[in-house]
């Protein structure tokens, strides 16, 4: 009983926070202005990481500019798809097997993330399109 009420509060707090965050990301473009934090990894090391561009992508996504969102972070779409597929299968909405339940999925994801990070830091054609 105690644990479930704790979980309830956590869900409520996270829900309110994400609603505020969505409102914020809808109203302001992270591309101009200082409102949103920059990736510390990029700030100090000058390297684009796998999460760079996600804030801009979220802003574009909320304005239904899918192509721009895609250009800011290519990995956002596949990761959202995979997570949605996992959640729908787990909750019984969709039949089938979760893509995340296979034995080698974590390794494949690790390789994709590391490759993505390497390639998006190459500043020449065609990899420059992967940069945020």
């Amino acid at each position: 009983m105690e644990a479930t009420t704790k979980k309830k509060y956590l869900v409520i707090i996270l829900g309110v926070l994400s609603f505020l965050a969505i409102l914020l990301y809808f109203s302001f473009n992270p591309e101009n202005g200082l409102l949103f934090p920059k990736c510390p990894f990029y700030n100090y090391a000058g390297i684009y990481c796998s999460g760079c561009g996600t804030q801009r992508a979220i802003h574009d996504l909320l304005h239904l500019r899918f192509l721009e969102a895609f250009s800011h972070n290519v990995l956002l779409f596949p990761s959202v798809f995979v997570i949605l597929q996992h959640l729908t299968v787990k909750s019984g909405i969709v039949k089938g097997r979760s893509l995340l339940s296979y034995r080698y999925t974590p390794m494949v994801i690790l390789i994709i993330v590391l490759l993505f990070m390497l390639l998006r830091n190459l500043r020449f054609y065609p990899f420059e399109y992967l940069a945020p």
Partner: protein
Amino acid sequence: MENNSNMPPKPNNHLVLAILSTVFCCLATGIASIIYASKVNEAYARGEYEEAQIASKNAKMWALIGAGIALVVWIVYIAIFGFAFLGAMANGGNY
């Protein structure tokens, strides 16, 4: 998996948290979490249930550390710069 009919179910490898952590914020902790998720699967496939459980705990821990740090940094940043930003907007009109 099939040859161990008396094995308990596989511990959660928290891969969803790991992906969220990696793509939405924190590279280092996200990758640590993905590696532990992989360890959960491998240990379980080898039949080492205890080890899989430990790896599961680590996967969750690293994903949550990343998310927690990101959340705190984000809130503090928005709190500091957000108010300055809103103030500038209220004063100047354009920023």
